[in-house]
């Protein structure tokens, strides 16, 4: 048989590879390479002021995992934050999406106002909230005192600071849920709702037995995306409290950042970052399985 040389890839394979080539290259250079370097650094004595780079094995990991601040403050904070922030933003976002999905006068204006937080940079939001809850001049305390209550040093008490961080985050991300859920609501088929309206079904039952099940795939995707993002929140905490008072509102990203760039210990910072990365990776895979199952059900 005459061996007409076939190209290594068929036309289709070449097309497929070319479509993802730029993305893959960028990811290789700016995600894979750094992660490999970070993994390497996490096994070495790599302090920014004294980079000896001697191999020390799992010492940094042991130090991070046995650090009480990490175990008893940072991790619980991060998980608590993740759960409450996602739950809060989902419930508010869903309520607002349902509200915006029925036509009323001034709907456009309301919609625009509700989307405002989406445009606000988390750093800007944190600055605003810090100013509002300033213990001497903040409007929150002014209002409290005006109605005869005592002003609170909001940002220097652990739980009030944590609550304010949480509220800021929910405020920031509610529009994100609203947007995606509203888009989802608008793409639902009309017929079941018309049938329900003719039957005179109550609003609550329509929501419970029609809207919610049909919206479920969108909800699940939103929750997974936001949960992963909430785990790595950095900017609002950094600007609002810097992790304080003490280290009581520190989240995982802050912990790694402080180790690497304030304590100048890149090795241990990388190890902490990798520990967190592994945790969220496991969570992410579990959540992905869940998404798959729920979306198919």
């Amino acid at each position, binding site marked *: 048989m005459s061996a007409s040389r076939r190209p290594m890839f068929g036309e*289709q394979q070449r*097309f*497929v590879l070319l*479509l*993802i080539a*730029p*993305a893959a290259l*960028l*990811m290789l250079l*700016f*995600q894979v390479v*750094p*992660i490999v370097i*970070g993994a390497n650094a996490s096994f070495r004595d790599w302090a920014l002021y004294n980079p000896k780079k001697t191999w020390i094995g799992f010492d940094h990991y042991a130090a991070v995992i046995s650090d009480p601040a990490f175990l008893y403050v940072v991790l619980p904070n991060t998980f608590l934050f993740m759960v409450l922030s996602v739950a809060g933003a989902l419930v508010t976002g869903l309520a607002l999406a349902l*509200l915006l999905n029925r036509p009323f006068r*001034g709907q456009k204006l309301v*919609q*625009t*106002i*509700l989307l*405002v*937080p*989406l*445009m606000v*940079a988390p*750093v*800007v*939001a944190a*600055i*605003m909230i*810090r*100013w509002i809850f300033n213990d*001497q*001049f903040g*409007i929150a305390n002014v209002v409290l005192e005006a109605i005869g209550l005592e002003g609170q040093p909001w940002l220097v008490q652990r739980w009030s600071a944590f609550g304010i961080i949480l509220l800021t985050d929910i*405020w920031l991300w509610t529009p994100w849920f609203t947007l995606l859920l*509203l*888009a*989802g609501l608008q793409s639902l088929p009309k017929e079941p709702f*018309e049938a329900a*309206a003719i039957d*005179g079904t109550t*609003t609550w039952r*329509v929501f419970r037995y029609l809207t919610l099940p049909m919206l479920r795939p969108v909800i699940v995707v939103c929750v997974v995306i936001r949960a992963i993002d909430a*785990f*790595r929140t*950095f*900017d609002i905490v*950094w600007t609002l409290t810097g992790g304080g008072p003490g280290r009581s509102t520190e989240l*995982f*990203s802050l912990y790694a*950042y402080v180790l690497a*760039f304030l304590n100048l210990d890149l090795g241990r*910072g*990388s190890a902490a970052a*990798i520990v*967190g*990365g592994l945790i*969220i990776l496991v969570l*992410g895979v579990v959540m992905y399985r869940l998404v798959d199952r729920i979306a198919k059900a």
Partner: protein
Amino acid sequence: MPMVTRPAFLPGLPNWSRKTFFALALAAICFAFAFPVLWLILTSLRPESGVYYVHRGTEFTLGNFKEVLGQERIVEAFINSAVISTLATVFSLLVTVSSGYMLSRFTGPAARMWFGTIYVFRCVPYISWVLPLYFVVQSWGIYDTYVGLLLPHIAVHICFFSWLMKGFFDGIDPSMEYAAMIDGCSRWGAFIRVAIPSALPAISALAVLCWLFTWNEFLFALILTGNRVPVITVVMAQFVTEMGLHWNLMAATAVMALLPAFLIALFGQKYVIRGLRI
């Protein structure tokens, strides 16, 4: 045609009181959502002397904006942020539209592997790769430059936007593309001339989001830039620590940082809602 009546909201109440209740609740929600921003704007319009008694004074001024705009570093930061956001949007779209198209139209092992990669990297916390990225970027000599901030930004957009893009293309019937290919279009021709135009609403939505995300981003900029490429979020955060007491100036800067994002989102919201159907 039979009138389809919606089941009553708060049944048992007279119509007018239901309407008033609805309007009041709506007003309260809007107020709660807008309050922080309103308060910021109000603060930015106060002279330094009045800013601590904002609720009492009546004096307003544009002096804060004048003072902030007189600071070279802040103006520079605005320009940098705008340039980087725009470039990042253009390049991210170029890269992610094609990658999302691939994810949607092909089902082989390559597509599955690519989707897995994207999902896994989407989960990796920023800090885990930005931290060593600091060293990578430094050893390549692009630390504290436009390129050194721009490329990581594009890289971080890949996962999320490819995923969203896949969803959009999933919603578009591929038969038009097949028809074009039967008529003699190449695969690239079908992609560029048929698929992209029909995905334009989604692409506009992504452009708006991408621009906003880049403009608002903080951690990358904090770690990957020093003094030469100030961006607005970092400059503002430095404000808090270094000039902690000039709330009026800080508010003015923050309001200006809000403005372009606000305009973009205002004009883009139509596309975002229409485009974001996953």
